[in-house]
């Protein structure tokens, strides 16, 4: 049922509208935006941060809504009212998965906020694989998805390499600078041609890994590894998690953050499960199954490049991650981050990263089940795992969060 006040993003809008993108995964999103540029879109990543983002969000949404929604709405409204953009030539975009979690309502919440602010004419694009809404000017095609996949793969690779290099580098900031440089180069490459050259991709993988391997670093003293799992937004977004990664690095840890592709695989896999369990969507099932196999192969390929030199640790094959869920939670649990979150905790623990931060917005519904609800069984399954749950919201005090993290780190140091 489509809402009557729905404002579509039309084809005419492509040429002179600026599309504002909320900041969740800076590296990945920057690459994706370059790809969209080749299709004629103008996009801008919102980089604003600070206290007033949440404040603005609270003003325009129900205060009991999840924290990511408050932040995204806050960031978007803040941008629209900053005077930097012409609201009549601006559109908003939000990444959306759909499903039984209330997060599938983000688009509606943004739209309601726009109405409240008297800017109901601003189109809001839901970027979704589930095809929740149709925008004539913003079609998700297989071709686009295929190219976006490489942005995700590159992003995951760079994120992983930064994580594994940053704690040991001799010159502070070199790993991040290297990543930024690559984002620029890859962006130029992806942003100039719609053609994907497989050989070039593999070549890039190799050169990226080599560049990071060449960063002068001292790995003789291994630092305790700390994994970060949780609700997708607060897991990745520094704005959402009070700069969690930076805090952990400062406290002398090495962070391990499961990649974004895993989440994409998770959503694909759930459609397969819908068919297996309830016999839903047979045609879609076949397509998704092929997509799943394809993505798994691409992930393996990238992993091969990552581990080739023997310096960097690789990722567990996704097919194995899926099976790890089975030991504690049913794969039918698909809302939010669902079984993937639980599986990631098991995977991290088994691959030698026993210290885990489970991040969630305060009162996150799926995380009651697959995050906090699964800690007892995960600890039972993986003795010695050191898991801490951290809640994020507009009112949560940083001191409290940091204190709990310090406790986890004190135990990690043993």
């Amino acid at each position, binding site marked *: *049922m489509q809402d009557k006040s729905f404002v579509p993003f039309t084809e005419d809008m492509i040429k002179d509208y600026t599309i504002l993108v909320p900041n969740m995964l800076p590296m990945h999103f920057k690459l994706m935006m370059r790809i969209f540029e080749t299709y004629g879109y103008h996009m801008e990543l919102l980089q604003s941060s600070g206290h007033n983002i949440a404040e603005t969000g609270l*003003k325009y949404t129900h205060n009991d809504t999840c924290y990511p929604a408050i932040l995204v709405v806050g960031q978007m409204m803040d941008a629209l009212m900053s005077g930097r953009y012409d609201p009549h030539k601006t559109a908003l975009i939000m990444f959306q998965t759909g499903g039984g979690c209330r997060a*599938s309502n983000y688009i509606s919440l943004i739209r309601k906020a726009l109405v409240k602010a008297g800017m109901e004419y601003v189109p809001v694009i839901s970027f979704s694989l589930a095809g929740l809404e149709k925008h004539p000017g913003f079609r998700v095609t297989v071709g686009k998805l295929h190219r976006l996949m490489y942005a995700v793969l590159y992003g995951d690779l760079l994120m992983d390499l930064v994580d594994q290099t940053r704690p040991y580098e001799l010159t502070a900031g070199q790993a991040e600078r290297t990543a930024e440089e690559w984002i620029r180069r890859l962006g130029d490459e992806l942003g100039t041609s719609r053609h994907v050259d497989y050989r070039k991709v593999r070549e890039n993988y190799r050169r990226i890994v080599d560049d990071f391997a060449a960063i002068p670093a001292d790995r003789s003293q291994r630092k305790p590894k700390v994994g970060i799992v949780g609700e997708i937004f607060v897991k990745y977004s520094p704005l959402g998690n009070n700069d969690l990664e930076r805090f952990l690095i400062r406290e002398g840890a090495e962070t391990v953050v499961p990649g974004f592709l895993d989440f994409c695989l998770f959503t694909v896999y759930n459609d397969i499960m819908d068919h297996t369990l309830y016999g839903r969507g047979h045609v879609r099932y076949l397509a998704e199954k092929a997509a799943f196999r394809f993505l798994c192969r691409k992930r393996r390929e990238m992993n091969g490049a990552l581990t080739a030199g023997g310096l960097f640790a690789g990722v567990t094959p996704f097919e194995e991650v899926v099976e790890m869920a089975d030991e504690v939670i049913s794969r039918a*649990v698909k809302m939010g981050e669902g079984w993937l979150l639980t599986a990631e905790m098991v995977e991290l623990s088994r691959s030698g990263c026993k210290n885990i931060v489970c991040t969630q917005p305060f009162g996150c519904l*799926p995380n*009651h089940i697959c995050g906090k609800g*699964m800690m007892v069984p995960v600890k039972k399954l993986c003795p010695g795992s050191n898991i801490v749950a951290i*809640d994020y919201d507009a009112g949560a005090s940083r001191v409290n969060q940091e204190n709990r993290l*310090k406790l986890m780190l*004190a135990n990690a140091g043993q």
Partner: protein
Amino acid sequence: MKLGIDIGSTTAKVVLMDGDQVLYQKYQRHMSKVRQTTLEMLRAMADQVPVAEASVIVSGSAGMGMAEAAGLRFVQEVYATKEVVTRLAPDTGAVIELGGEDAKVIFFAGGLDERMNGTCAGGTGAFIDQMAVLLEMTVDEMDAASLQAERLYPIASRCGVFAKSDIQPLLNQGASKSDIAASIFQAVVNQTLTGLIQGRRIRGKVLFLGGPLYHCAGLRKRFYETMKLTEDTASCPEYALYAVAMGAAMNAEARDRIAWDELIHKVEDSARREAGRTDRLPPLFDSEEEYQAFCRRHARASVPSRDIGTYEGKAWLGIDCGSTTTKLVLLGEDRSILWSWYGSNRGNPVSLVKEQLETLYGLCGRRIAICGSSVTGYGEDLIRHAFHVDEGVVETIAHYTAARHFQPDVDFILDIGGQDIKCFRIRGGAIDSIMLNEACSSGCGSFIETFAKAMGYTVEEFAALGLKADAPVDLGSRCTVFMNSSVKQAQKNGATVEDISAGLSVSVVKNALYKVIRAVSPQELGEHIVVQGGTFHNDAVLRAFEKELGADVVRPVIAGLMGAYGAALHIMHSQKSTLLGPAALAAFTHTSSSTVCKGCANRCHLTVNRFADGERFISGNQCQRGLGLKDVQELPDLHAWKRDYLNGLQPVPGPRGKIGIPMALVIYEQAPLWHALFTALGFEVHFSRQSNRATYEKGQYTIPSDTVCYPAKLMHGHVMELLEDGIDTIFYPELTYNVDEGVSSNHYNCPVVAYYGELLGGNMEELESVRFLHPPLGLDSQRELTATLLPCLRQLDGTITRGQVKKAVAAGFAAYEQYKAALRREGEAALAWAREHGKRIMLLAGRPYHIDPEIGHSIDKLASSLGFVVVSEDSVCHLAPVQYVKVLDQWTFHARLYRAAAYAAAHGDVQLVQLVSFGCGVDAITTDEVRSILECSGKYYTQIKIDEITNLGAVRIRLRSLLGALEEREREHAG
């Protein structure tokens, strides 16, 4: 030598050790001057025990910042505790440590595990302090009193604000302070058990640490009794206060060594730089002139008064018996104030009102005749019965009456009282919408008071300091409980008392504006705004409000008396009063006793108040039964009907043995289906009983997430109950998708309802020894259910065939359809009956499980007692068309809400009241939609947030306000 410094949220401790020997120990409240206090303590120590150098470690939540600034090593406090226990009490199984604002449990036996309270937690030292203030006792007095307790009242244990709203009515109803004190401690115990123990059994000895446990024998007693501990299995050692500091000292190593002078120098240096990085706001006033202009402007909003010593003639009395204070106002014929009184309840409003009436009668003499009296507020019923007050008027109406008198064009009233915020918008001379704060943010005025007292100031002094703040701290606008931590952080960063006072005022204002009213701009509130309530006597709050709004507002000089003033105005039509006269007052006595009502399964705790003239007033009841009333007319109540229907699903003996199903969450909707299905297969189906408080307590130890909704938490108790009944096969379906009613874009369940079985399986050890089935099932068609259910049933009994399941599924769906049809019929019948008998209809909407007496607190019965015919959302939603809503309409239960709202919107005689469980994430989405559907048709929207709170007082005010507004509106229409 080793030195441990532990700076907690309220106190600082230092311990100097030589090997394992303690040379010096001291603790002191730091009153938020963290670094300064530490410096003083170190100097004081050096005077007694000269130290040349020491290995120093800092610990404690407020110590983090200082350690960083002074370049000292920091050790997390739980980690420090562990060190002490490992050395001094190695046979310890678990440590329970309560601090100023932290609660911790550390498990040693059976795998080390350390747990601290999360962002939402109350049962700590600060909570106890707050409660002591409420009881007007010191913590020591409260502790001593608690040991004399005879009974325990249920008090919400999640956080201080909730507990407060439970305690206040108890005080007002005259419950004994010792009983309340013990109940408060019990709430702390429950909070620790549910929040931190979380399902884990404690094995081995329990060690109690931290100030509150060390100082309060009564608190320890509650822990001992609840956890069934003895002196052999638990102890609270001498070093309980210093454990963290000692642990810090023990952790110190050679690399932490520092010369004494250098240490002092570093701490001094850090103290100088104490002003930190907390976000700051502009000052409340830019200049002294601005302040003077502000004072002059507000002084104009005054009320005429006359000397009671010379006045002759008629007078009317208004009493406002609020949650924390009681106010009395006497008006003369020209509506001038003859006399007024404002004071704290001190826990017993009855004796207080008696005192004041005596004073008043003394002043009146024979010159003044009291022609009418009216009472409003939390204590309305009690005071009305005690003193034969002419009428009781609901708070909102009283306040509007007062404000209107003051500012005839008033279109918005904001009242911030001791523990509640009330706002109402006035349109066309009638109250148009009422907003009350939800249970989670009702801190308000008394919160500032508590903070002021904790820092050693009166409220007035504290407010005056705030006015002079240079850079108020920005504390955000969330629930006041969270502010404790924000203030802690500000203190860590060295904010002054002035800045904190002003910051708290701003946050109270923001809380009201953005949390309760949820306004975007001041224009949205109205043009003529009147603010009132005791909290607005605080100039800092008033100023903060005006600044936040960017507009001037009217604050009557009698801001704190408006309820009483309005009540008096409301009764001015009366010519002869029933109020107890001087003679009757002299003979007045009041006793209260407590008892348990046996009228129904709710087993309400009743407080029976008896007065000298034989008048009796009973409170604590959830319904009219047990009040000794005869022949109460029973109005149709669909919630009750549904409960009865489900209770009628009895076990039918069958060859395949017993199967247990918890009567919780989705089962409240689907019980008929599963009952018929399993019965047809030859199982004896046992449902757990509808919940009460004991159900919750049975399962509370196994709840892993303390912020999940109450209906989900109750699930654990239901499973325990089935297990206790000896049932060894338990079933709870895993339903990503609910029944498709074909009216929404999808038909999901919420994640909690859908997957709670997963959580139970992982967290309830008890389920490991029985068969617990929670298969993912599909309900879209009989075929799908048959296919998904078969494998799981085969596991249960290999002889079950597909054919049998197919038949059983058909029977299940038939029973479900039958139930739904009966429900719709019954709903229509109730509507027809109400219309025939001219009764108001309340559409009490929520989720199917809200009819559970423990979840819904029998609000349906309360509505019934107010004269409403009660229907449920699922009994009438079929009467309205499918709704186009602005949000994704994809949950089965919620789609019903939208249609029910549309039905209420289309029918003048139907009022919708939405029940919302605290922590229900999905309702953050639905409430706005339901509201907009109703308000588009000019209807009132009433939302009631429910949790484990058992106090119905606030709900009653809410519903009565609604009733009052309806009556007012009808009068307007008639006239």
